[in-house]
């Protein structure tokens, strides 16, 4: 299954990646190969098998509703490239 260049560009846009023309071509080939590999599953006969939505058994590994302290403000912001007023500062997101 071969991806088109437009599909690669769409996926890159969704991932917020800027790719050079060479990269687009390289990833088009790589992503297509990955899809081909996954496509081999289509060969498996599944008509007698009920749909499986998860390989994990359903269970209720639930957490009691008890708040616990998390990170301090300093720890939370420590990796941020830019901060302001105790918040993460990011490029404008609403035009």
């Amino acid at each position: 299954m071969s991806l088109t260049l437009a599909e690669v560009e769409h996926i890159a846009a969704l991932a917020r990646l800027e790719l050079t023309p060479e990269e687009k071509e390289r990833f088009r080939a790589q992503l297509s190969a990955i899809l081909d590999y996954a496509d081999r599953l289509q060969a498996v006969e599944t008509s007698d098998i009920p749909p499986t939505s998860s390989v994990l058994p359903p269970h209720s590994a639930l957490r009691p509703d008890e708040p616990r302290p998390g990170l301090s403000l300093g720890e939370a912001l420590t990796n941020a490239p830019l901060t302001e007023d105790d918040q993460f500062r990011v490029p404008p997101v609403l035009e």
Partner: protein
Amino acid sequence: MPYQVVIGLEVHAELQTRSKMFCACAVVDPTQAAPNTAVCPICLGMPGVLPVVNQAAVELALRVALALDCQVAASSLFARKNYFYPDLPKGYQISQYEQPLAVNGRLPILTSQGERIVRIRRVHLEEDTGKLTHIQRGAESYSLVDLNRAGIPLLEEVSEPDLRSVEDARTYAEGLRALLRRVGASSGDMEKGAIRFEANVSLRPAGSDELGTRVEIKNLNSFRAMESAIRDQVARQSATLDAGGQVQQETLGWDDLNNTTFSQRSKEEAHDYRYFPEPDLPPLAVDDVWQARVRAALPELPHAQLQRFMTQYDLPETDARLLTEDAATAAYFDHLAAPQHGIAPRAAANWLLGEVFAWLNQTGGGMGSLPLTPAGLAELVRLQEDGTVNLPTAKRVLASMLESGRGAGEIIAQEGLSQVSDGELIAGLVHQVLDEHSHELAAYLSGKDTLVNWFFGQVMRLAGGKANPAVVRQELERQLHSKKA
């Protein structure tokens, strides 16, 4: 051309838990807490962490699902909804997609067209996003991110496109909010953003069964915004269709300040969510025992209670609505109007919605802060109904009861407030007033009829407000009539 409006609503409600949906961070009041003080590696989306589902969030979601008469899935799935936006640092929101917690519910609503059933397509659990603040400083433009809200449990209820008017949409949204509050699932506090709406609006020619192209409006944070946005869409779409054009399927944001929609194209392009099952969470199991326990503990629901108040107490819909808006008021009224108190339910409703609500509004407290038992209020209503005190005096007695905590009977006895209905005494008072105001009497007799109310006021004043107003009016009219002759 006449069109029929078709509306579906998505309601997002923050659940009232103490900790977040997938981590143990405290749920804090977003309008009070300092930014980024209720965050941890899980809700900050750091690598290598694992989400764990909050039991209380599932419990509250179950209450809502069962109150909406949904089928609850024995096993539901969490899914990743992938999109890059700084309000969620993971790059995805954990939501439910293919197998939601519950489906096929219904919410009855009472509109001016009678009772309607709105079908609920699905109810699912997800997590809230962080808060973005957009800053424009000169040429510089950027956004600030506070992640306190990121990860707060959110319950989404999606209706079928069963709503046919702005009134339907409002009634449904209010009914759903009342239900969410009644079962204790959400504070319903719109000011704090605890409930938000998205509306899907389309038009079709009246009489048609096919659905028209729909426009989705996001960012509706109040009933008013929702109503304005729907009206705006109906006007735009009917103008387009009338002009022979076609409605474009699109997603719009609502600008509350300018009362208009704006295109969310940049966000829309990212609406290729590539959902897939959340590999970090096993399917969520809800067994019959859990369901049965939650179902058995459900309180009387607002719609059923509204109908009961209208039939059992013979109340007009507006009064019944106000009385059933919250559980505490409804319970208070049930006690107040109980048969052993022997007062008319309508009188009980008038007192509670009038004087008592006015006092609560003034003091800013809820029903819980009312220093007056239903039995105490019933005593006062009874004393007014049987004529022991007249209405203005009864209101003064109530004020005194609320202030001092004393009973109505005690106050009336101690302060000598019993109503005077003695005909002879009142006749004397009327006579005295007419005697002392010969000037006004002459004016009245020469045709100034409105003075009768002024005379009435004078008599009541002379009686210290305690005279039976009906007796006074009758006597006054009798004496004035005889003067005319």
